[in-house]
């Protein structure tokens, strides 16, 4: 009976084994892992939260299809005694917890994990651990953010060290780090708090929510996890700030307005400063003032130098230059300095191109001084004397005249105010010239002047920006002296009669047949007036041309010519 039983048992066992092996084969064919000795486990790491206990974790290898058990063994430094893990449970699966009694600091642990199943075992690589190196604390606790009102609003962040870490006895020293973020920001800002357990954040943005989190690290160890995030809402304390900004804005607007007002007042000066008037082109030898003098012959006399055919009845009339120089304080000689023909040509030639008025330096200086003294300089353009008078060689040129081939001193405004017009000596003109100029009409018939000018050499165009600056021939005295005076304000009428209007300027487009000028409409500087001279012009206004300083021709009405 027993034999039979044993036989049956043996058979069963064999069958079972066969079945088992079959299952194994089937399992393998189906792709499932079959039974095998366990794979090698791997120790992941060990960590100590407070340098009093520590935990080690491992990663199981393949289980071999069989229930596998894991055992942790350790040896202490320089000892061959092998101990087993005291606690597999506290720290979770696949872990070993060493409590205080089993933990020694500054002692090297040699740890191994062994996996075992029915078919065999597998041992991990050993790991050496010294607790002093593996400290990773828990995160800080009780992180709070509060609004504080000091001088200004600021945020105070406070926290506690992790419960288990004993910082009070000096066993562990922890340093802290914060991350702060506004709710709508994408990135966190890092702040290092050192050993302290609180931190201030100044000038928070009003009306926003702030998020703060903290972590800690022992002096030789790993950073902890981040604590839970703390939130705080910052109220809108902006209105006080806003008012400051508004005040600032109002103040700067005020300053700006004042600045603009000052700028507007000094518009002319600014304009002169930024955009100095550009001298315009001038036709060579073309004397715009001659146009006013209704002497068409003289106009073309000026062009003799350029090769124009002179008019027939002005054969031996030569363009000469009368220099007008002014001596406000003192009287000085004045005489025409007639130039010879050659000189005329040269002078004419010199007048090509730009705005050459040849106001002598002395004249300019005197004018400047006077203007500065008087302080009523209003003009921005210089006063030029234009006048090409025919002259002969009788008159001695002034010594100072010889050098005056200067360009028109446009930058030195020349203004002869009314008050200073006394005491000027009359200009001496050649009688012949005058007669040709005026057709024998006495000059003094038109006594508009109440002051006189000193002239030495008179060239160029007398330009005024105000009526008071016109120079007019007052009279011719017996010595053939032409007395000029600036035009007084009440004589503006006459000028207007002449049709001198500020705005009706035309531009010379071409000269036709030697005595016809073709004009085109153009713009010009409003303050440029063509100086006129001589009463004949006033008495007999006619439609004639007056060339302005920049080549533009001004139209005005002139009565029929007397010559």
């Amino acid at each position: 009976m027993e034999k039979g039983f044993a036989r049956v048992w043996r058979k069963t066992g064999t069958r079972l084994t066969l079945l088992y092996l079959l299952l194994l084969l089937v399992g393998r064919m189906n792709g499932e892992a079959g039974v095998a000795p366990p794979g090698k486990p791997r120790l992941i790491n060990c960590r100590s939260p407070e340098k009093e206990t520590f935990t080690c974790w491992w990663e199981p290898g393949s289980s071999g299809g069989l229930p596998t058990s894991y055992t942790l063994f350790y040896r202490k430094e320089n000892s061959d005694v092998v101990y087993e893990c005291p606690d597999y449970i506290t720290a979770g699966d696949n872990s070993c917890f060493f409590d205080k009694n089993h933990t020694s600091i500054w002692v090297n642990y040699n740890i191994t994990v062994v996996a075992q199943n029915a078919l065999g075992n597998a041992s991990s690589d050993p790991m050496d651990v010294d607790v002093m190196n593996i400290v990773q604390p828990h995160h800080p606790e009780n992180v709070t953010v509060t609004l504080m009102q000091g001088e200004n609003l600021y945020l105070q962040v406070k926290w506690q060290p992790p419960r288990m870490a004993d910082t009070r006895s000096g066993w562990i020293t922890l340093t802290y780090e914060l991350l702060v973020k506004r709710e709508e920001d994408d990135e966190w800002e890092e702040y290092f708090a050192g050993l302290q357990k609180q931190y201030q954040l100044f000038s928070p943005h009003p009306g926003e929510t702030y998020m703060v989190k903290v972590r800690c690290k022992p002096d030789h160890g790993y950073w902890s996890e981040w604590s839970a995030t703390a939130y705080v809402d910052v109220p809108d304390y902006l209105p006080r700030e806003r008012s400051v900004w508004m005040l600032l804005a109002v103040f700067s607007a005020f300053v700006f307005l004042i600045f603009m007002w000052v700028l507007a007042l000094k518009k002319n000066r600014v304009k002169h400063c930024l955009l100095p008037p550009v001298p315009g082109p001038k036709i060579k030898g073309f004397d715009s003032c001659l146009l006013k003098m209704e002497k068409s012959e003289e106009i073309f006399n000026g062009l003799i130098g350029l090769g124009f055919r002179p008019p027939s009845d002005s054969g031996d009339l030569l363009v000469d230059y009368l220099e007008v120089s002014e001596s406000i304080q003192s009287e000085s000689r004045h005489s025409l300095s007639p130039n010879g023909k050659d000189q005329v040509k040269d002078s004419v030639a010199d007048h090509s191109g730009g705005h050459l008025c040849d106001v002598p330096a002395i004249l300019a200086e005197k004018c400047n001084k006077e203007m500065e003294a008087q302080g009523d300089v209003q003009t921005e353009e210089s006063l030029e004397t234009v006048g090409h008078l025919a002259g002969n060689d009788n008159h001695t040129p002034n010594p100072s005249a010889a050098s005056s081939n200067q360009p028109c001193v446009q930058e030195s405004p020349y203004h002869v105010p009314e008050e200073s017009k006394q005491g000027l000596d009359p200009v001496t003109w050649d009688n012949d010239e005058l007669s040709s100029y005026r057709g024998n009409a006495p000059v003094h018939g038109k006594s508009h002047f109440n002051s006189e000018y000193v002239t030495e050499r008179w060239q160029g165009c007398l330009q005024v920006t105000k009526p008071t600056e016109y120079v007019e021939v007052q009279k011719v005295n017996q010595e053939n002296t032409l007395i000029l005076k600036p035009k007084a304000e009440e004589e503006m009428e006459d000028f207007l009669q002449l049709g001198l209007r500020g705005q009706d300027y035309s531009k010379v487009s071409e000269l036709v047949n030697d005595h016809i000028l073709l004009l085109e409409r153009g713009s010009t500087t409003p303050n440029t007036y063509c100086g006129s001279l001589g009463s004949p012009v006033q008495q007999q206004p006619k439609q004639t041309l007056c060339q302005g300083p920049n080549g533009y021709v001004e139209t005005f009405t002139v009565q029929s010519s007397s010559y």
Partner: protein
Amino acid sequence: MSKNVRPGSLFVLLLMCLDLHTLVESAPICAHGHTGCHSPTLSDLFDRVIQHSARMHGLSSDLHSDFEQYFLPSRNQIGRINRKCHTAYILTPNGKENAQRLAREELTEVILKLLAAWRDPLSQFHRSMARHEDFTSISGNKALEMSDMVHQLKNGVEKVAEKMQLLGMISNSLMSLSSTEALAPHSASSEARSMSDYELLYCFRRDSNKVQNYLKILKCRIVAEHGC
């Protein structure tokens, strides 16, 4: 003449008082409470000494990791030493409770013993470092600095001990400082000589950590402050 002498003597006195502030190296002149001298508090002394020990430990860690990089690429050998550190004869507390259980005097004594035990081996180490051609000069400088630091730190801790004795915080039963060296067994120094450079570094790294930790415990026990 007398007028010149008086400011001169005041000046000398000032200098003598200022000299106190270079604490660790020089003996304090005003230690016995001379009037007009300002001596640093025990808390200050502890802070300086702890800073010093922290720096020392930092240096030793750097050197240790440098050494591992250059000479021991194989991971199997890391952390494994074949013999004990030569300071194993010194009984040091291996945990917080053990350290707290020790009396202040004993703790101070342990610190001083440790520091004394390392003076010779570190100078030996520095000399052997100089011979290594492939070790960088920076590491050589660190080694020299380290051996100097041990000496300075020992002097500093002695000052602290003196101050503590002065203030009555520890009893005068502390063994005389010179005897700490004398008590070292002769075998320890010969053992140190036979250790390899790597082993020396490994042991010193650990011992410097011990010293730093013990000093912190001592400070917080004696001078409870914001740092504790």
